[in-house]
């Protein structure tokens, strides 16, 4: 019975996935030597590890949304991975709380080179409302090198996807291609 209802619902729903946005190279902040060979290997397939370094959980809501059917990131070759050892991109949200500083650095170090860091959201880009204090290191680039900054509170899934694509696309400035 459940299977019948599921099939019926799937057929009735149809396709809701939308075309992907273009990469936004303007979001890039750090130049990195991108070898053509590596780009060919990654192509449009990229694995991401997300770390919440102290966010309010607003940005996480949009990361979840990005995994929903409208955005079809699997179809773009983008997937989220549980282990930093398996990924190309570290996606970081929040200001970096002092209590997450060591964990964030270790996650960054655990990712094999070459790697890209995407800072997501106002707090990650500037420290946001939380700023720097006894408990907060402020923006992500105060703690680890950042390649792409995606502003917004929180950034929409589309803006986030543009940032991720900008991090690994050939549209990057001075890409060795």
């Amino acid at each position, binding site marked *: 019975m459940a299977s019948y209802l599921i099939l019926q619902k799937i057929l009735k729903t149809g396709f809701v996935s939308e075309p992907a946005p273009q990469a936004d190279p303007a979001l890039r902040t750090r130049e990195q030597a991108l070898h053509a060979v590596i780009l060919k290997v990654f192509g449009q397939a990229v694995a991401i590890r997300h770390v919440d370094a102290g966010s309010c959980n607003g940005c996480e*809501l949009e990361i979840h949304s990005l*995994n929903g059917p409208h955005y079809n990131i699997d179809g773009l070759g983008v997937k989220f991975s549980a282990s930093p050892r398996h990924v190309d991109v570290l996606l970081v949200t929040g200001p970096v709380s002092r209590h997450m500083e060591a964990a964030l650095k270790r996650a960054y170090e655990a990712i094999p080179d070459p790697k890209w860091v995407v800072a997501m959201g106002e707090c990650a880009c500037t420290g946001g409302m939380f700023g720097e204090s006894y408990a907060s290191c402020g923006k992500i680039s105060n703690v680890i090198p950042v390649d792409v900054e995606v502003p917004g509170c929180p950034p929409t899934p589309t803006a986030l996807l543009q940032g991720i694509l900008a991090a690994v696309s050939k549209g990057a400035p001075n890409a060795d291609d």
Partner: protein
Amino acid sequence: MKIGDHEWRLDPIGPHIWRGRVETGQLLALSRAVKDEGGQLVALWGSDDRHLNGGFGIHVALLTGLGLAWVSCALPTELPAYPDLAHIFPQADRMQRAAFDLLGITATDAVDERKWLRHNAWAADEFPLRKDFSPLTAHRLPLPEVDAYPFIRVQGDGVHEIAVGPIHAGTIEPGHFRFSIIGDRILKLEARLGYTHKGIEKRFEGMDIATGARLAGRVSGDSHSAYAWAYCMAVEMATASAVPERALWLRALFLEIERIANHLGDLGYLGNDVALAFGFVQFWRLKEDWLRMSAKLFGHRYLFDRITPGGVATDIDAAGQAELDALASRIEIEVRELKAIYDEHATLQDRFADTGICKPELAAQLGLTGLAGRASAQAWDARTQFPQAPYDQLDVNMATQRRGDVLARAEVRFAEVYESLRLIRGILKRLPAGGIHAPLQPVQAVCEGLGWVESWRGEVVVAVRIAADGTLDRVHPHDPSWQNWPLVEVGVLDNIVADFPLINKSFNLSYSGPDL
């Protein structure tokens, strides 16, 4: 107010909200009286009052038969201490430890004196919420990279530990879980939180009232409207400012939109966690439609900064009302279709039922609250029993279950989605005409207020004290996750480790909210 046999001097400061001050010696008797009549401790926090009266303060928010009582005790400057309340209300334990970490005020004779919010960002003899603690110089001090915390160990043949976090496998907030297991069964779970502590309460100090609303909304981003409303309720109470009626109704509209968005997301993830990816995709499709409607009608997918001191920032016109009403009707039809599938799905029902049980007796004893509480027969919802306007005119139907398992928490979410959709349609029909914002009354002297809002997760309380110059002197935002995290530890006992993600998601508690 009469509690038990004793008449306590508590004055009403808002609908169902009371204010009182007692001697430290009376705090225990008051707490026992509240507990005896079936009440609960909702929040506990401290304050540095040395610039006002020469000491410290300890504050409790108690749920009584007549509403929420905010009771304070003055503590001396030297060795500030108050009697331990955790032996009456176990949920006080972590709040008391946090009050010590932040202010250096001690709960006398408390069983658990371990640190809670403090890891390695400040030293044991420094107290960030004391007014003489400088937030800027302190963070330059070199501190140990690794933090040591004495977990409670389980010993015996075949027992071993699994340490999880602070970084988890999925897109989740950071926290550490220490499992002691035998085979696949969980013998003990101890959570260590505080990783996202980013100094929010210190940040409020000296901030202007308008900026404070933006920060309050970011205590826990998934409960933005609830926090922003509770904060605004508090500052409006403190400044004796009136809010236009239409603005109050729009705030309720935003709160119910937020509740539905979160419930849709959770119902999807609950399906995902039992390998029904179909459920995730369908519910997140509906959630995306819902968020896009918010962006279109109100200018933000999560309604950030739409609630401001004195009213709201965005109105809705007749066309918008019709559009929202139509979407609410479609979402209801679709959620009912999906509920029929969840009901019929044998694997899902098998995984949900009898998993992660919090029995009603234990829930009452430990103070389980919010939607998780209602799933364990803790039949209370601030919108129903102690409604603030406009809920006093909306007759909210409370959803309750007795099973206390994952299934019950899912059922409460379904029922609350339907009820919130009904409320939204009602609000749209009855939305009063008029303005949506009125300026706050100017601050003349030190003043205080308290806001109390039933978020999708449970009750959010924000206590505010405003300095004579109109800046914020002390703001304490309280998240219902404070009370509920210990129940996750209890609910997983004797379950298998593989069911932890499902049980955890069925509560979906905040880290950022209680980490502050």
